């Protein structure tokens, strides 16, 4: 394994991941020794509007995928409306390839609790929820323990640190539905219903949880807040690019020597990240990769120098998403990979809208046929047509996410499909997988 060059190493920005090196940082006394809860004291000494302005100035953008400016989102909450406001933290991490929020909540849960207190104070919420993915049991254990410790030390509950600000924080475990990562589906789920997305408008900022103004933010977004409060907006902007400021945890997985979490300033390239990760696995050459989970259009080896920030990835025709980079090599088949993703979207489609529910059902079957060696040329047209009818016509982004690997593999790797259809690639699936395909 070759060592990364010094100039590439300098692109590492350990901020949110820094405390992970302290094995006991999940305990409140250790956390407090590592600058913990200093930001809450500082934040409670200024007016909430000044905090919102600070976050706007920092240029912080949502870490959950869409990259919406966080300060702007907080500013949308109508103040003086006489209604309770809510903060809901989206910890339903489940986008294939994404694994940054779970370690954060497991090894540094108090940073999320502290961020939640500051964000709630800024938007004038006296109740906040962390909706954590059901399967994330160890992270939930640590998080519940952190909440309990924070109550005991007076960081949560009534009259926090003598400020007159009250906050109750509840950790709410989901029950295994990917769709609940969509913010309005998450709100329905939190209200005790099936997790199905809502029509917007009204946006959650006006009518979110319990039809009250609600901010829904990702774990990484909220965990960034204490650092901005401590270090200031200008310090935050010293990382990343002009429009995509700050550090980002890049989740690298797949055919590389050292998969893992690498926190770097936004705008780093895949080439540099692979260098940090010790290069490709021996014998593997980069073929295709997801810039931000499977719901973002796949990129290929020619995009290796694309800056990994919101603008750079968009210019390359994809989306930064959750910076979950699944890296595949020339030994992986893009058709097979797409089929497995579609099985996932098919399973997770909530069934509310027809394009997503029916489209995924049929695309899965078409893929099974191609992979079992019985595909036809018309199948490729059917796939393209179905994907086009899902994309932009579904109720929420899940349908769009399902269509993107299909469209992007058809665009970049049509030959791989033809190899199955024309018999050059051996079938990957057996006949029994074909029930219902004809």
């Amino acid at each position, binding site marked *: 394994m070759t060592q*990364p060059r*010094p100039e590439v190493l300098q692109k590492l920005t*350990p*901020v949110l*991941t820094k405390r*992970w*090196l302290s094995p006991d940082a*999940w305990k409140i006394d250790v956390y407090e020794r590592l600058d913990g809860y200093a930001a809450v004291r500082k934040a409670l000494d200024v*007016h909430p*509007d*000044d905090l919102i302005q600070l976050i706007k100035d920092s240029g912080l953008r949502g870490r*959950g*995928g*869409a990259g919406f400016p966080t300060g702007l989102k907080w500013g949308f909450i109508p103040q003086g409306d*006489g209604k*309770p*406001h809510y903060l809901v933290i*989206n910890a339903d991490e489940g*986008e294939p*390839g994404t694994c940054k929020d779970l370690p954060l909540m497991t090894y540094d849960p108090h940073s999320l609790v502290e961020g939640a207190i500051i964000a709630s104070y800024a938007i004038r919420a*006296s*109740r906040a929820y962390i909706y954590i*993915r059901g*399967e*994330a*049991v*160890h992270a*939930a*254990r640590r998080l519940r323990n952190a909440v*309990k410790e924070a109550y005991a030390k007076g960081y949560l*509950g009534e009259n926090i640190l003598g400020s007159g600000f009250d906050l109750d*924080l*509840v950790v709410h*475990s989901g029950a*295994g539905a990917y769709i609940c990562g*969509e913010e*309005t589906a998450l709100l329905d789920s939190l209200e005790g*219903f*099936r*997790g199905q997305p809502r*029509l917007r408008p009204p*946006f959650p*900022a*006006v*009518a979110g949880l319990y*039809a009250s103004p609600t901010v829904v933010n990702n774990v990484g977004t909220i965990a960034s807040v204490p650092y901005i409060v401590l*270090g200031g907006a200008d*310090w935050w902007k010293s990382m990343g690019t002009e429009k995509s400021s700050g550090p980002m945890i890049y989740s690298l997985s*797949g055919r590389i020597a*050292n998969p*893992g*979490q690498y926190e770097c300033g936004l705008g780093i390239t895949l080439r540099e990240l692979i260098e940090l990760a010790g290069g490709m696995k021996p014998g593997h050459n980069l073929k295709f990769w997801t810039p*931000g989970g499977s*719901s973002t259009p796949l990129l290929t080896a020619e995009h290796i120098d694309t800056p990994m920030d919101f603008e750079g990835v968009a210019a390359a025709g994809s989306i930064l998403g*959750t910076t979950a980079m699944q890296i595949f090599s020339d030994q992986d088949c893009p058709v097979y*990979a797409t089929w497995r993703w579609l099985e*996932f979207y098919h399973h997770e489609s909530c069934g509310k809208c027809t394009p997503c529910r029916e489209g995924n059902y049929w695309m899965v079957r078409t893929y099974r046929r191609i992979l079992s060696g019985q595909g036809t040329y018309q199948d490729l047209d059917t796939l393209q047509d179905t994907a086009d009818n899902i994309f*932009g016509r579904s109720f*929420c982004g899940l349908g769009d*996410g399902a269509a993107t690997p299909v469209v992007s593999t058809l665009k970049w790797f049509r030959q791989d499909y033809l190899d199955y259809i024309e018999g050059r690639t051996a079938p990957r699936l057996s006949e029994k997988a074909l029930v219902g395909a004809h």
Partner: protein
Amino acid sequence: MSDITVDFSPAAAPLAEKLLEPAREIIARYPVGRERSALLPLLHLVQTVEGHVSPDGVAFCAEILGINKAQVGAVATFYTMYKRRPTGEYLVSVCTNTLCNVLGGQEIYDGLTEHLGVGHDETTADGKITLEHAECLAACDYAPVVTVNYDFAIDEATPDAAVGLVEKLRNGERPTPSRGARLCTLKEMQFQLAGFADEREGAVADGVAGAPTLRGVTLAQEHGVAVANFNIDTPITTTKPARDESAKAVKDPAPAGAKPPAAKSEGKIASAAKRAAGAVKTAAAAVVDKAEHAVEHRKAGAPVKAGDVKDPEVRAAETRNPDGSTPTPDASQTVAPVPGTRTEAAGTAKNAPAGDGKPAGDTQRGESIVSEANAAHEEQSTASENPGWQNAQRGTEEKK
């Protein structure tokens, strides 16, 4: 809500006897009038006893929340973690989503299927192991992964390691998970999913971070890389005094005499079921908790309002999901007859009338909310000034 007493039906009474107190703790976490938020944790709670959600479990949740069984059933069947058949002592999940799949997850799953003789969501005859193939478990840097009761059990797993794991489990051993807490049974795990602390001594401390998690930050440490100029005393620009009326939050209506929810919900769980059993008196088939001050009394099967019905605010989900007494075209029979025997109760539950109205809520909600949609327009105009964002939003709002 926590002050309401409920006459449980014969179907729900045995569960109520065990679960009433923790159920009330769960309900107390949510604002008054928003008790339905407790449904997901309540369904997890039911699984602590049954290992799955049975018709009795559905009845218990419905009766304690004052909604009908069809509404509970609709939710219970939507989420994959609510099991519809009895489960084994351990749930073994193998990730077969794309990345784990190509790195060997499929072979591991196929190997386990063959070794155990069960398929997806099936349980071995000895009642020890339920097997499932899971979608992305958020540990791709350790691919392929296998979890036991959702704790990461084997990282970079192989078919042999997975077979070795299930053999140990079947022999009564509890191998230490790679990055989770020491193993418990699936039913015990459900108690934590219901939102209660893990009371096992030291369990929270179990599991150290693996090398992949720490790779970037370790590399930075080894090479002395740090972000410069981090000064925690950097001043925040202020434009107004910290404390004025505009800084105050509007609170939820407080439950009468209630303690802070989290204070209630943490810390006293292990014996909760026993204490509940002791605290609840059972008379014939009805359970009436006389320890709590009763402000409302409810009979099983009686049409009980869900609390939000008179709320002038337009509710997204509730508009589509009226409670049992809301007159909707197909809800005429949502009030189930009170069953006389336990068997009959199970039968009734299995044939519960479909009570939910058809999803008519969207348009209605969109129209009636217009008056307060100013901020939404603001948000929209932002989107139109920046169309790139809107596209990004459409494409990526699923990311977690």
